[in-house]
């Protein structure tokens, strides 16, 4: 720095003050292992936990099969379930036994072929196949229903083929899933996870840093120096920003290499939008910190406003479009909502400028909002 001749001493002093604040904060971060843990250990832990723990892909669903009178047709039908990797069929002698198993959660569903199945089938009477599903978990129930339908359709087709014909459906659905052809839920969940994790990190890192200074009495000592409120905030923001970006890089790396999520968009886009989100999220932490002025309350607020709303309302797992309009309005108040949208697009779809641009714009508004509030609340006066 010394070789840079700066003619303006006021500016030089300001730069020196900022340098001091940043250096101090950085040293404190290095001394206190908990900040480092938050930035680096937390993402690893959470990504592993979430990445593997949250999966909507039901596999090997236990399914009870009841065949009241055995026949080649019934056997062929039951056989179609054996082939599915999604279902693991268990035979039961009577429907009562199977229902008991459903009550005790041994099976999640039952397929029931009655006595007269073969007879009706052969007479062309459109034989009914009973399906009973435990509907408590409606989502899994839907998925099981889909699996059973698939098995049923493939059995119909196979049967038609054996009878030297084709299953003649009037309309057949040709499906094409964009961006995530195999419908791997990890591809969808892991990018969203990064948003949830960054929300946590941002709030945790900064929620207590200013409150801590008030509590320990260091704030009053800082306030009487010529340092400005802006410099205090920047001095807090920048080191944690660097730390947060480190955590982010780690998360992105794990997403791509460990979870095999494709990254179709470009890294610079990811970096810029993530920076915006991180600033918004650190800004929120700073705001909490300046409002609360004591660590206990700051901690409570951080717990309440960070994790659960990001988890439930960001579109990370629950689709925002399915929520009632009033709740959808609430989600607009959450920076994580925009970031989840950006991440899912950048990872799976690529640089879709309209999605990225609009959401980034929203994030910029949040940055300005939180930093503005923190700046207003962070007065150089004690009142």
């Amino acid at each position: 720095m010394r070789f840079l001749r700066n003619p303006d001493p006021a500016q030089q002093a300001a730069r020196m003050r900022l340098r001091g604040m940043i250096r101090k904060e950085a040293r404190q971060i290095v001394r206190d292992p908990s900040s480092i843990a938050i930035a680096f250990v937390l993402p690893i832990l959470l990504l592993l936990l979430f990445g593997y723990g949250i999966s909507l892909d039901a596999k090997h669903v236990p399914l009870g099969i009841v065949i009241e009178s055995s026949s080649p047709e019934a056997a062929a039908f039951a056989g179609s379930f054996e082939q599915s990797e999604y279902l693991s069929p268990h035979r039961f002698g009577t429907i009562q036994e199977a229902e008991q198993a459903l009550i005790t959660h041994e099976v999640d569903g039952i397929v029931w072929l009655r006595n007269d199945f073969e007879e009706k089938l052969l007479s062309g009477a459109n034989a009914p196949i009973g399906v009973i599903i435990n509907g408590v978990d409606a989502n899994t129930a839907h998925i099981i229903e889909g699996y059973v339908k698939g098995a049923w359709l493939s059995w119909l087709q196979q049967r038609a083929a054996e009878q030297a014909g084709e299953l003649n459906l009037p309309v057949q659905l040709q499906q094409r899933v964009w961006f995530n052809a195999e419908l791997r839920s990890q591809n969808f969940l892991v990018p969203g996870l990064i948003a949830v994790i960054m929300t946590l990190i941002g709030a945790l890192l900064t929620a207590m840093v200013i409150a801590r200074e008030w509590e320990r009495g260091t704030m009053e000592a800082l306030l009487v120096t010529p340092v400005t409120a802006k410099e205090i905030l920047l001095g807090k923001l920048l080191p944690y920003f660097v730390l947060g970006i480190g955590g982010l890089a780690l998360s992105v790396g794990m997403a791509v290499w460990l979870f095999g999520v494709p990254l179709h968009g470009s890294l610079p886009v990811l970096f810029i939008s993530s920076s915006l989100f991180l600033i918004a999220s650190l800004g929120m932490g700073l705001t909490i910190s300046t409002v609360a002025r004591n660590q206990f309350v700051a901690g409570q607020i951080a717990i309440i406003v960070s994790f659960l709303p990001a988890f439930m309302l960001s579109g990370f797992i629950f689709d925002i479009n399915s929520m009632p309009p009033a709740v959808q309005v609430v989600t607009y108040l959450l920076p994580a909502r925009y970031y989840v949208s950006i991440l899912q697009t950048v990872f799976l779809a690529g640089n879709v400028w309209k999605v990225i641009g609009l959401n980034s714009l929203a994030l910029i508004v949040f940055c300005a909002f939180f930093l503005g509030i923190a700046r207003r609340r962070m007065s150089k006066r004690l009142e």
Partner: protein
Amino acid sequence: MWNHLKALIVKELLAVLKDKKSRLVLIAPPLIQLMVFGYAATFDMNHIRYAVFNEDHGAASRELLAHFEHSDTFECVAQLDGDAQIAPVIDNKEALLLLRIPSDFSRNLALGQTANLQANVDGRNSNSAMLVLNYVQSMVSSFNTDWMQDHGESPLPAHLVVRSWYNPNLVSRWFIVPGIVGLLTLLVTLLITALSVAREREAGTFDQLLVTPLRPFEILLGKALPAVIIGLLEATASILIIVFWFKIPLLGSLLALYLGLFLFLLSSIGVRLMISSLAVTQQQGLLGAFLFFVPAIILSGFSTPIANMPEILQALTLLNPLRYFIVILRGVFLEGATVSLLWSQYWPMALIGLFCLFTAGTLFRRRMV
């Protein structure tokens, strides 16, 4: 001893509830979150936004599309008339689904041949994509059935008659909302106990407490019981909201529910006190709280089934009190479960609770000579 405990409980309740700010923090957010999340947390799709690119101009395609238009589940947002429009509609998230009807659709149908309907889905949310495809498949099936009936074709040889128990309309809210009670109860006990020991240590009141003749286990119970009391009250309020506002049936016995609630409070508070007595500063206390809270939710089966997890994580869930409580909540609410049916859920929570309280007590005692 009872006199000691009473004094400790009164003190703790007063310390928590006297402060207007902390009262607000304890009461308002959990109940607001219950309301918001109760509506937000749903896997059910409605108003699925779709776009149509109809290259066929026959009556049959219009009839098929009419099925979609009359459905409450689907909402048409665009009619396209060129290939070039397809990608942006999905890329920009204007529509989740694009139905494309090829130009030979009506002709094929008229000839008695199979006609194709193309469904393009945005897979960025794989769960929604799968559900959308299921819905479209159902629409097509019912169209097929109608068509075959109207045109005198022989029906399919067999059909599925699907019935779902406990939740006949497969409303996913029924599944999620009782789980939120577990989540928020955990949050409340966390807020009360998370920092209370560290806070007393920093304020110096812990020393003052330790020089009185109070025994370690009395101090410990004095910390745990107020949290149990507040937890019971808040959970009761949430249960009332669920039953009377969200109109989710409560079929099982209240005894089974409250036994589970009590054991859950005991075990989760035990875990928290254990962490709390390990933490020296409030920051460590907060970090510890998070490190318990977040995995506890993920590994509880609240949002996604435990059965979908890898085996290691499934084994890990056995240590999580919330996992058992969620099973109890859903069992009692939707399946009408009774105490005897839930026995396998009660004892692990009791075990976890006793272990943690014992450990916390030992840690306390070690600090007290």
